[in-house]
């Protein structure tokens, strides 16, 4: 019952002269265009966009939507991405008039309700992180990393210190070194030890007076909380460096441990992970940052302040790094985070993390007799297993498992990241999945390991397409439709 016609490209569905959207007749006197604009600026014809009826458009995209797996339709244990349930109430509330339709350059006096929520969100993030200075401006986690590193750079400049080196863990997200580079810093990598934690000796060897920031993910990308955290942060602070915490894994420690309390000086949140902002097929996210008191004056401007029961945007921050984007921030995503936090309260957030930990450890315990879990007795909110043994004994790679799981109706875990584990399978079930779902997922994995190799190698079988040729796509990239193609 797949609709083949409407999964053609928009451009192939186009018929000259077909139209959807129409405007009311022009109600002001029409002037010749040439009298309004210089003729050399005018186009001979509008761009060659496709021509479709509204019914075409709706059916086309609705059919395309059915080719996606999503949190609303499937278990989506994509490690490191925190694919939790996206509450519907957040969608309704964020779409209210007075929020979704506010112009970014309205006067503060006209948006007191909105500013109140954003101000409260700043306070909430400060409380959750244990870091008092908050900027809601960055548009995504990586953007927050960059903004925070710029804050650190501005701070060191103000202190008259030359600290151009950023250390990142070898298990870190690629965004860490990429952000450091964009902030004009050099990066060096700190190794992981046999327990999957920071190799403290390697860190200490690399620390010196040129070290600006150590970027740390804790719990790390293996789902492990680094038990040496206080030693790590002390060692960096002793050398005058700052600790940056990548907040990608905050879903594990809400109300359990605060970055500010374990030594972080700067961090970002991923509200689209931790606070249930829908991932939108790849975005939008948001990347609010929190910093220690002595870094607050360097944060991007504006921030929301409260004076005499009125809220306003404070632009007058002379030491601020400035802006990292246009307008206030990804407000739609931030409001969903606000609604989510309000819906849970402090105790609820702690339970979020507890249930995320419970689910991950349960699933880990169920799969560890077929997949090796190289590190730790327990994990936090996610775990990284290795398909190395399956590869050796049964010829099945992490990629094979990932692809075959799709046939069983499960989105694949993250595979081949972090790179320090061979044939890695990174599973993050989140707190919003039932025991039955986790059991079904584990059982699917068991069954796959018993299946004929060829069946698994050629998976998926139930999807519209299977194993696209990425080599061809990269060798001769076709990045747009053309009439000839």
């Amino acid at each position, binding site marked *: 019952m797949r609709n083949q016609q409407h999964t053609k490209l928009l451009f192939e569905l186009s018929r000259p002269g077909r139209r*959807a959207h129409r405007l009311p007749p022009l109600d002001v006197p029409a002037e010749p265009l040439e009298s309004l604009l210089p003729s050399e600026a005018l186009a001979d014809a509008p761009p060659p966009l496709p021509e479709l009826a509204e019914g075409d458009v709706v059916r086309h995209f609705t059919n395309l939507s059915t080719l996606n797996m999503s949190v609303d339709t499937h278990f989506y244990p994509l490690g490191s991405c925190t694919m939790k349930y996206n509450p519907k109430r957040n969608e309704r509330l964020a779409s209210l008039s007075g929020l979704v339709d*506010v112009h970014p350059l*309205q006067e503060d006096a006209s948006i007191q309700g909105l500013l109140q929520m954003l101000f409260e969100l700043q306070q909430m993030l400060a409380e959750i992180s244990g870091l008092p200075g908050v900027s809601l401006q960055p548009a995504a986690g990586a953007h927050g990393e960059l903004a925070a590193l710029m804050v650190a750079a501005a701070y060191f400049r103000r202190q008259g210190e030359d600290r151009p080196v950023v250390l990142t863990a070898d298990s870190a997200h690629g965004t860490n070194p990429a952000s450091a580079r964009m902030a004009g810093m050099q990066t060096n990598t700190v190794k992981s030890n046999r327990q999957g934690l920071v190799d403290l000796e390697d860190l200490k060897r690399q620390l010196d007076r040129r070290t600006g920031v150590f970027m740390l993910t804790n719990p790390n990308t293996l789902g492990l909380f680094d038990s040496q955290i206080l030693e790590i942060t002390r060692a960096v602070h002793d050398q005058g460096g700052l600790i940056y915490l990548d907040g990608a894994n905050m879903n594990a420690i809400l109300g359990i441990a605060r970055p500010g309390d374990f030594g972080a000086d700067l961090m970002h949140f991923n509200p689209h992970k931790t606070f249930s902002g829908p991932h939108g097929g*790849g975005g939008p996210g948001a990347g609010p940052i929190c910093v220690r008191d002595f870094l607050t004056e360097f944060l991007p401007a504006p921030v929301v302040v409260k004076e005499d029961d009125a809220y306003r945007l404070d632009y007058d921050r002379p030491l601020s790094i400035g802006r990292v984007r246009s307008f206030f921030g990804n407000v739609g995503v931030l409001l969903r985070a606000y609604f989510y936090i309000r819906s849970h309260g402090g105790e609820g957030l702690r*339970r979020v993390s507890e249930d995320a930990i419970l689910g991950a450890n349960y699933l880990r315990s169920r799969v560890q007799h077929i997949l090796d879990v190289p590190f730790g007795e327990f994990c936090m909110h996610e775990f990284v297993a290795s398909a190395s043994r399956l590869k050796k004994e049964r010829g099945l790679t992490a990629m094979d498992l990932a692809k075959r799981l799709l046939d069983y109706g499960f989105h694949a875990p993250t595979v081949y990241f972090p790179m320090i584990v061979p044939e890695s399978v990174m599973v993050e079930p989140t707190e919003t999945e039932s025991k039955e779902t986790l059991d079904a997922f584990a059982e699917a994995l068991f069954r796959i390991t018993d299946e004929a190799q060829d069946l698994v190698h050629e998976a998926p079988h139930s999807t519209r397409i299977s194993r696209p040729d*990425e080599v061809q796509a990269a060798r001769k990239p076709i*990045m747009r439709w053309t009439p000839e193609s």
Partner: protein
Amino acid sequence: MAYFFHTDEDRRQMLAAIGADSVEAIIDAQVPAEVRMNRPLELGPAASEIELEREVRRLAAANLSPASHVCFLGGGAYDHFVPAAVDAIASRGEFYTSYTPYQAEVSQGNLQVMFEYETLVAQLTGLDVSNASLYDGGSAAVEAVLMALAITSDRSRVVTAGTVHPEYRQALATYLEEIDAEVVTAEVGPDGTAADLISRIDEQTSCVLIQHPNFFGRLEQVEQIAEAAHAAGALLIQVFDPVSLGVLRRPGELGADIAVAEGQGIGNPLAFGGPYLGIMACRQELVRRLPGRIAGQTTDRRGKRCWVLTLQTREQHIRREKATSNICSNQTLLALRSTIHLALLGPEGLRETAEQCLQKAAYARRQFAASERFEVLHESATFKEFVVRDTSGDVAGALRHATEAGFLAGVPLERWYPELADCFLVAVTERRTRSEIDSLVSTLSSAPRSLASASGVAAGA
């Protein structure tokens, strides 16, 4: 706390399977006692759906918006109409609760949308290739400059027009502070000329950044500037307004090497500044330096046409510190909305929208010019917004008066341009009607003059 699953019995069974007495014990085994939080987070009690909705509705109702007031605000974000079909499709969970298409087989919907979006952006701009989106117009302009600096790696000067959106230029200054590059800004303000800009382009210039139509709604001499930039071996980056391309020539035809835009005006809500959509397109030969994700066409193992993420070696998850950018999450959902809206508009719909903006803005400009109190800074060659001067010098008072009468009347320019303290920016989209425009001009004209002298009287009394 409505989203949890586990019953007490579930917990008991799960803990038994794990071999732990409690979740607390699992945490204790990993998180050192010294860093454990020893009090509850102070975030207040959990709000039920009914309570939360009651409170948020009250707070939302406390804000003015284009739903309550007739909106003439612009300055990079616009009250364009969004057809119902855009909201209906984009609110499908299969779109908005999915993630980056790491597993192409179960993401063909999103991947095809990305490919269609990239094609539409290429068609719109007259350039060869587009990425799948960046954060917003401002950061897209910055990324374009960083891209140009990487391409022309022996050059470190960026020449920008003072007529580029001031917040985009602020973001650029922030980014360039940390790297070895300098910005030269030609004449800041609405009267900057091409000649002035061109005089600053030299052999050290990596790229020239202009906005057309510019922040003040005026057209720039793009072709002339492109010629000068190219003659000096520099790239031209043009910030454009997607809606304007219903009537204006496309960036690719004018000589832009990289074109960037704020895509909010094509199908996306105002949302107090975000999430928005950073559009970026470039010439084919620059694609290896293009930041962000790109969807490409290929075939699957059975030979069926399909789509995948491609040229991923540009990106941070592979190239790490040498990546073209650190961007990971992008704005796919907003790109979807723009794709739907462009599909609904088609060439004629886009032309009609652009022409109505142009005609209505021109009408509004004539009404202001004819008024006693106001002047317009430029009598012609503006697209959908223009600068109005209040000869009485009381912009704040006039705008406040208009707000009380039901208008979001204009954007005061003093914050970015102190010399334009008596001016504000008025934007007119296709949504506005003649009677709204007429009553805006008459309302502003009837505003009490000079609050400054009025408050002086009050202070003296």
